């Protein structure tokens, strides 16, 4: 298990150091049935640039790692979900009120800045990398070891790390929400490959018909998940 995790770590670190185009080759060499990250590396991002893509992969891997509990975010394609989701009207602020003036009020009133989601993530990546370079001798987030990455993430989550231009806590919360969406949403959106997260928690997907099981108490729900396209897990 330890070997396995080490090889995966070098794979992910590898991704960050190579241009995106080279990532497929790296992944092909590092094939491992249990920690297969090919889902992330075969996809060519069209929203995130190379550095951002490496950041997204590294952050996904820490937020929902591959472990004995079940598949990780990277192998289920969550980076692909994020890249595609950032190109939807939703991420451009389609259902948010986006008019100014933009004022500072308490946290009970939600995000009051002028950026739509996709720009919160972009500005956030740049700011987090800036923080990391200053704190860790010129290294970006992807170049830190797992322990250092998690220290940064906890600092952002608690609001202890102050970033230039944007709230680190906000960026972290938005990333966490998006990564969870990608991990759990229907596979058609790019993440949750083969309904991996649904199988892990026992979610039947879009079966949407449980009348015969409402009163069953002594047995676990027996059927595997179904996705929007009708595939069975």
């Amino acid at each position, binding site marked *: 298990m330890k070997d396995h995790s080490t090889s995966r770590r070098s794979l992910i670190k590898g991704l960050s150091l190579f241009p995106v185009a080279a990532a497929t080759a790296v992944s092909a060499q590092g094939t491992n049935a249990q920690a297969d990250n090919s889902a992330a590396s075969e996809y060519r991002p069209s929203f995130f640039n190379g550095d951002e893509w490496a950041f997204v992969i590294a952050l996904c891997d820490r937020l929902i*790692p591959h472990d004995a509990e079940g598949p990780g975010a990277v192998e289920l394609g969550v980076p692909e979900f994020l890249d595609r989701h950032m190109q939807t009207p939703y991420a451009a602020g389609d259902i948010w009120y986006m008019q100014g003036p933009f004022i500072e009020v308490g946290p009970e009133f939600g995000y009051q800045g002028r950026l739509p989601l996709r720009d919160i993530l972009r500005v956030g990546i740049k700011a987090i990398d800036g923080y990391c370079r200053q704190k860790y001798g010129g290294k970006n987030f992807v170049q830190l070891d797992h322990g250092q990455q998690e220290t940064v993430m906890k600092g952002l989550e608690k609001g202890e790390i102050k970033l230039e231009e944007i709230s680190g806590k906000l960026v972290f919360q938005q990333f966490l929400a998006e990564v969870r*969406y990608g991990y759990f949403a229907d596979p058609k959106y790019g993440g949750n490959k083969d309904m991996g997260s649904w199988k892990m928690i026992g979610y039947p997907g879009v079966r949407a018909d449980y009348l015969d099981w409402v009163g069953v108490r002594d047995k676990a729900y027996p059927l595997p998940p179904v996705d929007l396209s009708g595939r069975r897990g």
Partner: protein
Amino acid sequence: MAIVKDSVDVVIVGMGWTGAIMAKELTEEGLSVLALERGADRDTQPDFSYPRVNDELEGSVHRRFLQSLSKETVTIHHGLSDTAAPYRQIGSFKPGTGVGGAGTHWSGCHFRALPEDFKVRSNIEQRFGKKFIPDIMSIQDFPVTYEELEPHFDRFEYVCGTSGKAGVINGQQIEGGNPFEGSRSRDFPLPPNPNYLGGELFYKAAREMGFHPYPIPASNASGPYTNPYGCQMGPCNFCGFCSDYGCLNYSKASPNACILPALRGLKNFELRTHAQVMRVDLDSTGKKATGVTYIDSSGREIHQPGSIVLLCAFSLYNVHLMLVSGIGTPYDPVSGKGTIGRNYSYQNLNRVSLFFDETVQANQFIGIGGGGTTFDDLNGKQLDNAAAGFIGGGLVWARQPGAGPVRGVTTATGVPNWGTAWKKGVKEAFRHSFYYEVQGSCMSYKDAYLGPRPTYKDGFGRPLLRMTFNWHDNEIKGSQFLVGKALEMCKALNPKSMKGDAKPNGAKYDTTAYQSTHTCGGAIMGDNPTTSALNRYLQSWDVPNVFAPGANAFPQNNGYNPTGMVGALTYWTAKAIRTQYLKNPGPLVQA
């Protein structure tokens, strides 16, 4: 120069529950009825069809069935000394849009108010003395009684195919129902739905405390049903997509399933969608509405003349329309004068989550929006408010409207938000936990109200509404009391762990976390035009050919979900228009 359309008898603004009820009732009277809906038309097919409707990302993240805030929203602050900021992302409450409105994406809990809920102020004064009510609390009796509304509660339940168990019929108590409810003229149209685990265990826990549990009246059909309009419903299959979603199955009552099929095609009914009503137009006296002005789908300004104007938008937007149209006098919290915007109230929702080991099959993905179990032992006159330390009351209930992982999985105390320990916590919780909720009343206050906020404009150049609202000590005490009772009760179920989210002392209203779409008041009904915007028939005191049915009419909010009351009030208003107003158009109550 506005285009002027042919005049109609009735112009309806908004095609949710209240608009659909009014359209049906008034077309039956032979009137020409035009409904203007700002959103799109929607019907079960294709808009709620399987499997797309079960897409959690579309439904609960992109919020396909909710109102986008991009063009219309409100601003919110806690008090006059704070600056109000826009409600930019959906959080605390979820207005609907399109045909069906919030009646498309509601859950289905379908309560009647208790008889004493109509007389909160006089009952409290009688039981505990006038001084028991703090000076800042502006609660008022409803100007209508339970007995007057009973036929209309009944009517709405039969339109919705409500599934439940009566507790009192014609004064006789019935075993298994709510013994504290107001007397019904007959039983529910359908029996209760079957119980999932959490709803079943609730009976055991509640009875051990000496409470009187009963099935929540659910407008989620427990069997095949045809309503009085001839609309057919099918049995709920517990798909778990009620709240946020349209019903794929013709099971959850909605304007789309239960009324629109009987309206579409009528010669004296017209529905215009993508018609954004900007204001109610008044004549030179300011006492009569001549119709409304709206922006059509091509962006043209249209004047639509009509004899009667019915404001049937979501409660907050009904108040907004009255303010921007100059109907009545805006409420001023300093002088206490004015009525439009007065007595805004909300709902005091709290949750208790119970976690079990893997042998307990709670299956939260199995869900029904309105079904479940509750009791009224801590609500209405059953509660000793002096001992409890707050005015009002509330329910503790088991409800399982359906959970999917995109909507979020509540994990046990101590589980982090990410990493391996989070994954483990989610796996343990998803099928082996459930939650009970505490839904408390929310009183009204002199400093909780709605007004205009000109700094921010909507997509049509109008000032946004400003909501001034914060939790008062009374509601915080209520939250702590009711959550305390719920936690105490749940010990009987021996969960591995549990957690409750009672509001701490000094809690502030948090607009970012979903609580409830039960935004009430702002254009309230009353018996005095100096302290209410509407008379007992929900008719504007100031402009008598304008009526505003909706939760905006509640002087304060009780412990129940408002939809049953909203429907009953709307039928009550429709009856008043049909039997009184049409014969003699003018004020139905003399000021």
